[in-house]
Each structure stands twice: as structure tokens, then as C-alpha cells.
């Protein structure tokens, strides 16, 4: 049933939110964001199957391209921050705080 797929998508998205909220390791936070993008993708593809319409597949492709761009930029930023601070703690990365 398509509703099972949507429920799984909701559960995975909530697990991603829990990962972002509870962890301080910047890699885990980043991969939790990827998990949320994947959950949204599963929702797109499941609704696309429900309506027998392929627009959801194209949207999932777009989300994957955005995730790839995000991965490249985020990893560059992580390397820079690790070079400057020598740490992976998100609480240390408060450079923009006034």
C-alpha cells in the first residue's frame, strides 16, 4: 500500500530531525540532513506511484542533484573548519555569533 511508504518516509524524516537535534558531531549532523532529503525523495516517488504520473521522479532527480551540490560544499566547509579549529564539535563552530 502506498500509505505504508508515506509512513516510512515520515518516520525516516523524524529520525533525521532527531539526529540533527541530538548529536554534536558535524558529520552525523550532515548525514542526518541527507537522511531527511532521502525521506522526502521516498515521499515524492510514492505519491508519483499513487497518481501514476512521473513528475515525482523528476522532482526526486532534482533533489538528488541539490544533495550532491550540498555535499560538495558542506564537506569543503567541514575541511576548512577542521583546519582552523582542529575539532568536529558543532558548538565550537560559532564564528558568526556577535
Amino acid at each position, binding site marked *: *500500500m*502506498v*500509505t*505504508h*511508504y*508515506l*509512513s516510512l518516509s*515520515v*518516520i*525516516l524524516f*523524524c*529520525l*533525521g*530531525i*532527531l*539526529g540533527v*537535534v*541530538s*548529536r554534536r*558531531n558535524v*558529520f*552525523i549532523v*550532515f*548525514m*542526518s540532513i*541527507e*537522511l531527511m532529503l*532521502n525521506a522526502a*525523495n*521516498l515521499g515524492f*516517488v*510514492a505519491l*508519483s*506511484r*499513487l497518481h*501514476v504520473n*512521473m*513528475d515525482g*521522479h*523528476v522532482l*526526486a*532527480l*532534482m533533489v*538528488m*542533484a*541539490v544533495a*550532491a*551540490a*550540498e*555535499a*560538495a*560544499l558542506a*564537506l*569543503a566547509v567541514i*575541511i*576548512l573548519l*577542521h583546519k582552523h579549529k582542529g*575539532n*568536529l*564539535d558543532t558548538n565550537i563552530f560559532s564564528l558568526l555569533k556577535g
Partner: protein
Amino acid sequence: MLTTYLFFGLALLAVLGALGLIIFKHPMNGAMSFVVTLISLAGLYALLSAKLIFAIQLIVYAGAIMSLIVFIIMFLNIQEKDLPLDPNRWFYVAGGIIVVGPIAGLLINISRTLPATEVTVFDDGFGSVKEVGQLLFTQWLLPFEIVSILLLVALVGAVVLAGKRGVN
């Protein structure tokens, strides 16, 4: 019937992988557990007869993006003592469940109001490379071009950020 069993098996694997991601302490263990989630999601796309998305999930997500992340984790050579301490992590998990749980229940109940269609795998062109490609290059041509510009900008930005020499 087989698709139902496959769905529940893959869904269980996906949830277990996601739980491992937010529980394991070392990011390498978390990344390996996240790969399990990504591969089982690829299987779920195949069950939803999204053939192109299935292949791209395996190649781009489980292949390219995750190998990039694992490469960076190994490149930074993270030891046990470099990991941030999470003293009140379970406190945040409990707070997050209290906030997120009702929203999740609401969304799952909303999804129950949708028509209950059985998922059968189509063996015609639905979701194949040709059909999705035709849609992508006719109706979705402008978003496709915008995404290509986004990828170019991200590439230039990553080179500028990570490729600095002698700046400390």
C-alpha cells in the same frame, strides 16, 4: 504478496540503518550504517517501479556521495579522542521525540486518508529511462538547466573554499 514481504524487510533495514546513524559514536560507523539505509531505499524505489531513480540512487547516493563522505572522514583521520562528548545527548533525544512524535502521528494519520492502492510493479515504461527523460527534457527543461547552473556554482565554490593555499 512477495512485494509486501519485501517492503517490510527493506523498511525495517532502512529504519535500523537510520537508528544506527544517530546512535553510533564514530562517524565512520554512522556512515556505514547510513549506506544500509540508502541501499534499502533503492530497493523500495524498485518496488515502486521507479527504475531510473533506483539506478541513480545506487550510483549517485550510495556510490558517489557516500564515498565522498567516507573519503573525507578517513582524510581527516578522526581518532576516538577527537570526537565531541555528548553528555546530555539522550536528554535531547527525549525532547526531540516529545516535539516530533505528535507531528509524525499527525502526518501518518493524514497519509491514511489517501486511497489505498496496492503497489504492483509495472512492467511497462513507467519510470524507465526513456519516459522520465522525455518528461525531463520537455516539461522540466528550465528547472533542469537551473540545477545544472547550481552544480556549476557549487563546484566553483568548493574549489574556492577548500583549495586555499597559505591562508591560516
